[in-house]
């Protein structure tokens, strides 16, 4: 199999440059920002906008990702990425320099770094146990490139020249307005003598008194003059440097460059998932099907919220859901601030992430490969104009139902809040009936209990509170009708100071 891309199993897949309409409602924009943070130069966002349309394309990525979950391989890719980044910085420096010798030296460093990157990655991949079609094909491509004559010459020249330059050491004797430049001749380090005398007083770390000197990459005429004298002391080395620059202009292979960018899609996401993993949150490879609407997920969570909470070391609550048989619609009700919206977002995020071929939050997931996903979240604006708002609500829902197909997903959050309960029950029922007719997968967050029992397609889930303390939310959404709650909490229990609780706490 010939290699075209680590992201796509088939060539010429078009990439979306605009984010999908549901992104902000599901907080996926925050997620992508968090994932791509610190990776601006790779322009990763479009990859996160572009859903895959075939299960086979998803499998291609899941395979690649499984390979990358191996610590050894991911460390190799990280090294490669670092080297390529360094290489680009060196090239930028080379362009920005004024003195010719400086340009040449930076260019040499860029080329040498690139050679290291390719050679190292080639060797690493040869040793790695690779299971994915993507990586196996890339390994073969890289191996044949590294064997090419052009690459071999580049690498040999660069390494030889670099070690020659590194070996040069010279002395400056500064007296009055004159500088004499000589080869270094084993003169003794005087600072070390000073350090040695006072070593007996050393008391651990102290601050550095070293003065800061401006650390400019550019030379001025005096430094350039000194460099010319150093070049006169080592004429052969500097002649080879001239030649190198002319011979090896444009050394970068386009396939290697594309791989460097595209593989970041995976590593960025794995890094993000890894941070949440440290907070005890699991990710899994979903089973994705374009046919079966029997979906489920265990211990799943809202990745946007989790990423925020984990950074503040706050616990994240996980939830489960499933639909089986004729069930299509999760109707979520219950106390406010109980995690209902979060649950709805989670549902949407899961499906989007699965369609990118990524790991999804949770320990087990079976998900649906949708054609379109629609969200209808309450908008804060226009609170005065209630009638306008209801009209707007219904217009938007109508629009959605007009576009939706049997393979679409609809997520509705607190709709129809701007009318009387009676109206809301009537309108809500009508809307859900249409959704049932269309056989859509749907999550509907609502305060209207009646919607939870419209027939075999609907499933009621509710947010829950701590039984003893209704002010405290569990953020768990469970399959059950809403019910009343009991209160009363032994005060010692609250502080975990009962005999049993305290025995647990006092450990050696």
């Amino acid at each position: 199999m010939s290699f075209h891309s680590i992201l796509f199993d088939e060539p010429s897949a078009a990439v979306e440059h605009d984010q999908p309409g549901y992104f902000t409602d599901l907080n996926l924009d925050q997620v992508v920002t968090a994932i791509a943070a610190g990776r601006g130069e790779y322009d990763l966002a479009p990859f996160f906008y572009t859903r895959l349309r075939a299960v086979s394309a998803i499998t291609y990525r899941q395979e690649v990702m499984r390979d990358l979950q191996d610590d050894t391989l991911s460390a190799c890719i990280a090294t490669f990425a670092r080297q390529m980044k360094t290489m680009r910085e060196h090239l930028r420096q080379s362009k920005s320099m004024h003195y010719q010798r400086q340009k040449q030296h930076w260019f040499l460093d860029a080329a040498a770094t690139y050679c290291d990157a390719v050679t190292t990655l080639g060797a690493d991949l040869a040793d790695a146990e690779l299971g994915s079609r993507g990586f196996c094909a890339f390994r073969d491509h890289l191996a044949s490139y590294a064997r090419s004559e052009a690459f071999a010459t580049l690498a040999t020249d660069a390494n030889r020249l670099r070690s020659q330059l590194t070996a040069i050491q010279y002395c400056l004797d500064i007296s009055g307005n004159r500088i004499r430049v000589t080869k270094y001749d084993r003169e003794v380090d005087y600072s070390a003598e000073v350090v040695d005398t006072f070593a007996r007083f050393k008391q651990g770390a102290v601050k550095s008194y070293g003065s800061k000197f401006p650390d400019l990459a550019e030379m001025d005429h005096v430094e350039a003059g000194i460099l010319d004298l150093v070049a006169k002391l080592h004429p052969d080395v500097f002649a080879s440097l001239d030649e190198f620059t002319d011979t090896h202009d444009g050394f970068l292979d386009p396939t290697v460059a594309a791989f460097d960018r595209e593989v970041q899609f995976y590593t960025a996401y794995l890094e993000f998932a890894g941070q949440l993993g440290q907070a005890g949150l699991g990710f899994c490879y979903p089973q994705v099907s374009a046919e079966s609407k029997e979906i489920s997920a265990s211990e799943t969570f809202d990745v946007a919220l989790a990423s925020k909470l984990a950074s503040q070391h706050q616990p994240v609550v996980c939830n489960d859901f499933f639909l089986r048989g004729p069930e299509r619609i999760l109707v979520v009700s219950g106390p406010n601030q109980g995690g209902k919206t979060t649950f709805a977002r989670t549902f949407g995020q899961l499906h989007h992430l699965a369609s990118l071929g990524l790991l999804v939050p949770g320990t087990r997931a079976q998900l649906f490969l949708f054609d379109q996903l629609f969200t209808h979240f309450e908008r804060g604006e226009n609170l005065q104009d209630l009638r306008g708002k209801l009209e707007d609500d219904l217009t938007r829902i109508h629009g959605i139902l007009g576009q939706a197909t049997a393979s679409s997903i609809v997520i509705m959050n607190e709709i129809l809040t701007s009318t009387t309960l009676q109206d809301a029950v009537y309108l809500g029922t009508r809307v859900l009936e249409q959704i049932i007719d269309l056989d859509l997968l749907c999550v509907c967050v609502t305060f209207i209990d009646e919607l939870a029992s419209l027939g075999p397609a609907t499933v009621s889930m509710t947010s829950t509170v701590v039984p003893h303390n209704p002010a405290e939310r569990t953020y768990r959404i469970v399959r059950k009708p809403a019910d009343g709650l009991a209160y009363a909490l032994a005060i010692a229990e609250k502080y975990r100071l009962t005999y049993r609780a305290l025995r647990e706490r006092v450990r050696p």
Partner: protein
Amino acid sequence: MKAFLMYPGQDFDAEADLPAGAQALIEDLGLQTLFGAMSGDDEFLYAVAERAVLTSLAEPEAVRYRQHALRDCLDQAQAVREMYQVAVDAVLGSKKIYRGIFSQSPDATLRWAMEMLQLFTGLLHRLREIADTNAANFRSQAFCTLFQTLAAELSDDFFAAVDEHLSQLRFRGGVLVSARLGKGSKGIRYVLRRAGERRRGWISRITGNDSDGFTMRIADRDESGHRTLAELRGRGINLAASALAQSADHMLSFFTMLRCELGFYVGCLNARDRLSEAGEPVCFPEPVAADGPARLSFHGLYDVCLSLRLDRGRAVGNDAGADGKTLVIITGANQGGKSTFLRSVGLAQLMMQCGMFVGAESFTDTLCTGLFTHYRREEDAEMESGKLDEELARMSEIADRVTPGSIVLFNESFAATNEREGSEIARQIVRALLESGVRVFLVTHFFDLAHSLYQQGSGESLFLRAQRREGGQRTFRLVEGEPEPTSYGLDLYQRIFGTADQAQSAATR
């Protein structure tokens, strides 16, 4: 070169944060009085005393190391105070040597460092003299090691080498610097070099160019060129200047450490002097390793802080043999000395575990892994409903940190609710703590609690009662005894409100 007067082979960390819960200990045991006596109004000594007393040692060996050093100090107070003065002079003197905030050039750093080194070498001479004169009178490992170190490190050769550097570093003949090619061929790794033989004479040659090297000259009016030249020179001497300044810092931290560690012993001397004036006895306690069965026995144990506060008269001492007891319950008359006794136990524990003497005629005790106090707090009186919450929240903080081998001192805890509830909460807590290997001292006026613990009557409990003579007079002494159903609040009432008859008739009315 280290002082190592507080630990064998380890520095005393005077900058460390006070351990969590320190504030409660200070408040509940009245430690400010002890720190005040140790410091004699010197802020520095106060801070040292605070750190040292609140940072408990865990091993009997570590405690004895300080006890031995402290014995030396008690015998050789004069020499110890002199050495302390040298350290103080070094630290305070160095603060007067001005180092400009803006002149961070290597030349300025070099000048400053040389001045510091001149001050310190003088004081090191003095320290060496004190050591030479007094070393023979010290016995402890801590001080003997310090004196040996001083004799070995502060040799005549050392002082001579310092003088040589101070003259070399004036750079009368120019500066020789080596360098390598860094990124983009910029010079890097500038290292100051001692000039070799061949350097001599090149300045006198006309061009300065030969097979060994090439010379360039900066034109007189090339200002930026001269700046670069000065910068290169600066890069050359940078490391040496920094090294010298760091050496000055190292010497300063030696003196700082010496000041701290001697400061603890000077503080102990101060406190001993105050207690001697009051005629109070002190003794070195016998520390017992935490891993054996619980030991506690003492004779004449008194509250050091109470004694330090009393204008005249001695604090009342208590005796007890509580070996093998993990629970000590103190009940009895109000104002009968219960809290004072509890404080004296806590104080002795802390003082022992920092290597000090304790306020007693004899004291043997198991070292604890952590000391905690849970006292009823009088503040927030208006917020009645929140008070039990507050007490339990504090208890919960203790529970987060308490470990087997800790001691918890309870003083009228959980009294913010009624006796039945408070007793039940306390019973569960006490039971859980004891079973977890925590030692508990508990002052309570809850008869329900004390009585039920007495009924359970394990051999590991000791019950003490505030003594009360016939007629209600208090001795402030505690005796072993079963909890009694009244706390003699009536006595207090009588004393404040008048006679027994009036009170009784008031009660019957």
